[in-house]
């Protein structure tokens, strides 16, 4: 009993230390953002005269409204198409048991750990030849392909566990495969697809490499890519850079805090499956 209590206390202390270590960088970022623009503050030092206006300055300097719009457009391009296409494929491989499904599935699995840097060079020439270089499509189309192995893998795992009887009875009622898919299976797959949507949203929003290689104009990029450009432009003005970084972080943080339960579960499952 005594040991149990002692362990509980060490556990609590450890948790608090861990949370502090996680939050300290954000705190430092926040405090620094309040110093006068262009000054060289110390790491963690409350300013004499907090400059809340820095956030407004950074908001205009980073052109946040346009950035938000661009990121949202890219997410709207990637996530719905990926979901529909991957759900269909997962359904066919996991539930319809199409001939040759093993080979198809293994072919998708091969792409699961592929580093994006491995194909970024030809992607540039490919996207250029398609005529979409420097547009948002240059990020959207390749990302759908790059996320496909995981998405198919994820949806197959759902459909493999769907009982055969479910489809049998729908077929007896005269449903075609297409109707069976949309009317019976898509609604039942909602938990799997919504978790997948969360993961795809996050990975698209945070995508950096494709954004900086395939799109020159920061305003056509994802939030991450724009942050990279912002650092290049304002890198010497530390308080402003900190304010800008915090602003650019905020949308993901908000979405995370609203859907935190689902996020944590989805990400944990996502890494377990991947």
């Amino acid at each position, binding site marked *: 009993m005594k040991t149990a209590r002692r362990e509980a206390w060490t556990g609590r202390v450890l948790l608090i230390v861990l949370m502090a270590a996680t939050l300290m960088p954000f705190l430092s970022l926040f405090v620094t953002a309040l110093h006068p623009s262009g000054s060289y503050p110390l790491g963690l030092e409350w300013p004499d005269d907090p400059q809340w206006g820095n956030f407004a300055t950074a908001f205009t300097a980073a052109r946040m409204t346009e950035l938000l719009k661009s990121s949202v457009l890219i997410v709207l391009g990637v996530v719905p198409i990926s979901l529909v296409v991957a759900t269909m494929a997962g359904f066919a*491989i996991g539930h319809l048991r199409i001939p040759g499904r093993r080979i198809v599935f293994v072919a998708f699995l091969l792409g699961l750990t592929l580093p994006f840097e491995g194909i*970024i060079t030809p992607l540039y020439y490919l996207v250029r030849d398609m005529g979409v270089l420097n547009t948002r499509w240059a990020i959207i189309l390749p990302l759908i392909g790059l996320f496909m192995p995981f998405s198919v893998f994820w949806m197959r795992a759902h459909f493999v566990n769907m009982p055969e009887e479910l489809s049998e009875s729908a077929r007896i009622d005269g449903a075609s495969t297409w109707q069976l898919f949309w009317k019976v299976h898509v609604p039942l797959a909602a938990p799997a697809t919504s978790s997948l949507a969360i993961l795809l949203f996050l990975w698209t929003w945070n995508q950096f490499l494709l954004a900086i290689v395939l799109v020159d104009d920061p305003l056509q990029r994802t939030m991450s890519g724009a942050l990279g450009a912002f650092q290049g432009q304002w890198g010497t003005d530390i308080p402003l*850079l900190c304010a800008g970084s915090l602003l650019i*972080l905020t949308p993901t943080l908000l979405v995370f805090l609203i859907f935190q339960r689902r996020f944590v579960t989805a990400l944990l499952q996502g890494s377990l499956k991947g």
Partner: protein
Amino acid sequence: MKAAVKRRSGSRWAGWLFVLPAAAFYVVFVIQPLAMTVQYSLYSWDGIGVATWNGVQNYLRVFTDPDLFAAILNAIKLIAFFSAVPVVLGLAIAATIRRIAASRLALVARTVIFLPQVIPLVAAGITWSWLLSSTGLVNQLLSYIGLEGITRAWLGDFSTALPAVGVIGAWVLLGLCTLLLLAGMSKIDPALYEAARLDGAGPLREFVSITLPSLRQEIGVCVTVTVVAALASFDIVYISTQGGPGNASMVPGLEIYYLAFSEREVGLASALAVVLTVLVIACALPIQWLTRDRSS
């Protein structure tokens, strides 16, 4: 009966239509570029003019050019920070907080320690560049505890740039590993621990003979995810050091980017890309195989 069988097998082939769009995206934007990378890697090409056949010359350069090979070694060194630290520390933390995993504090902590996993890596890079700079929080804390002697611009120093990048990676990945391992521990039958206690086992013994073996799969996942993150690191390095100072923190991902888009050595960049891809798969597959095999 026969008609039914025929209809069924007919509809099974029709199922291929459902796979087609996914396969199309995958083939066009992943398989095709992958094949192109292999093809480019055998040529000498500046991205504009005519490409000339180069055989395996590019690969020879990857392994003999000290700068290029150093980048590969750096990626392997980063594994110590990206993988070893989060997995070992994560195991220790998860084992310690296992008993209070359902408490209020632990629920709040779950959200908090997940934050680094949610924010863009670029943001983590910018934040830590500031923390590790000469006037940053890290040096401030070191001076506070009397270690002024070792303060420096951690990311700008030849001997500390790579470890400093590693620290950023460890910070990003620690929360994910801890939560994954904790989730794994919650699936272990508590009766096992009670039995061990009755037999007089201490916390350490418990950990070695019950916790570790049961977490085989979770540890495998943590190691795979973090090793891949180390080998294929790009965002953090690009933002915090750009591979510098000199070449001290250069990694293959960043080198590929520079070679292909600044130095116009598309062939060489592609050879390095092939090597990186093979390295990642060669590391990920055995770990998966080793840790998954027995349970299924």
